[in-house]
């Protein structure tokens, strides 16, 4: 099973995501200017500050050549996981509902938070119990999840909210404590926490590994 991790100019957590993926499968780097996905089974759009986060987080990266391929890949049911900046890019690209706004604190926040796995198992949470709590760091300035109320109702009803900040842990003011959502088809996942920074006891926690493992299993199936 092969992951592809995109590198945009300004991506920061791309190599972290690569090594996280390599713990559960093969992984290659995909360059923003490339026009094909090198036959990968799943795409990770990593964290960082693509194009400096200038104008609006994810707004410019969304138009990188590689994103056309990612959009096509996703439309065809391919698995895509957008982490932090990658989540913002996926929202801007219309692959995921909603948008991410400046934290209520107006500041960058790094914090090890507890997040809960919700809803029915998805390709990204398949190996996890519903209600399982994971300790994963967040680090962002623009992580406040927003969607119109009607959309939120639909997301909840359809079980598309798959990750939420545990009570009292919401670091950014996200509506309904939403930390991660999937698209209607369930093949695109966006989350603000950084599972690639929770794959080794030595550097904090291994709770993020299960998300990559779930994805690897789903993509291999």
């Amino acid at each position, binding site marked *: 099973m092969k992951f592809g991790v995109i590198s945009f100019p300004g991506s920061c957590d791309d190599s972290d995501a690569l090594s996280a993926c390599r713990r559960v499968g093969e992984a290659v780097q995909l360059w923003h200017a490339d026009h094909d996905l090198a036959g990968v089974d799943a795409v990770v759009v990593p964290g960082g500050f693509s194009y400096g986060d200038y*104008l*609006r987080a994810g*707004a*410019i990266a969304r*138009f990188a050549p590689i994103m056309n391929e990612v959009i096509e890949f996703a439309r065809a049911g391919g698995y895509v996981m957008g982490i932090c900046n990658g989540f913002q890019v996926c929202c*801007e690209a219309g692959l995921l509902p*909603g*948008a991410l*706004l*400046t*934290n*209520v*604190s*107006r500041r960058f926040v790094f914090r090890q938070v507890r997040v809960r796995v919700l809803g029915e198992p998805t390709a990204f949470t398949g190996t996890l119990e519903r209600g399982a709590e994971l300790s994963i760091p967040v680090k962002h300035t623009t992580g406040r999840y*927003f*969607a*119109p109320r009607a959309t939120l109702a639909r997301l909840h009803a359809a079980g598309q909210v798959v990750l939420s900040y545990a009570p009292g842990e919401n670091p950014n*003011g996200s509506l309904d404590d939403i930390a991660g959502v999937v698209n209607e088809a369930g093949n695109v996942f966006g989350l603000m926490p950084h599972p690639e920074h929770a794959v080794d006891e030595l550097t904090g926690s291994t709770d993020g590994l299960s998300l990559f493992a779930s994805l690897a299993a789903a993509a291999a199936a």
Partner: protein
Amino acid sequence: MKARVLVRPKAGILDPQGAAVERALPALGFEGVRDVRVGRLIELEVADPARLEEMCERLLANPLIEDYEVLLEGAGG
């Protein structure tokens, strides 16, 4: 032609920057200020103003969370 694009958070969406400014003003002795919203200003020189609308829709603003307004040089505001 010189154009200005004003982008603001949609009504009803919490605007922490605006709220912070509103909180800070009285402390500086500025009373009677309400409804502060902080958005983005984009100034640019365009060959074909007809395409500004499309630029805003696709790049300069995110219609889900932001309203925008285009001011053309001399066309007044």
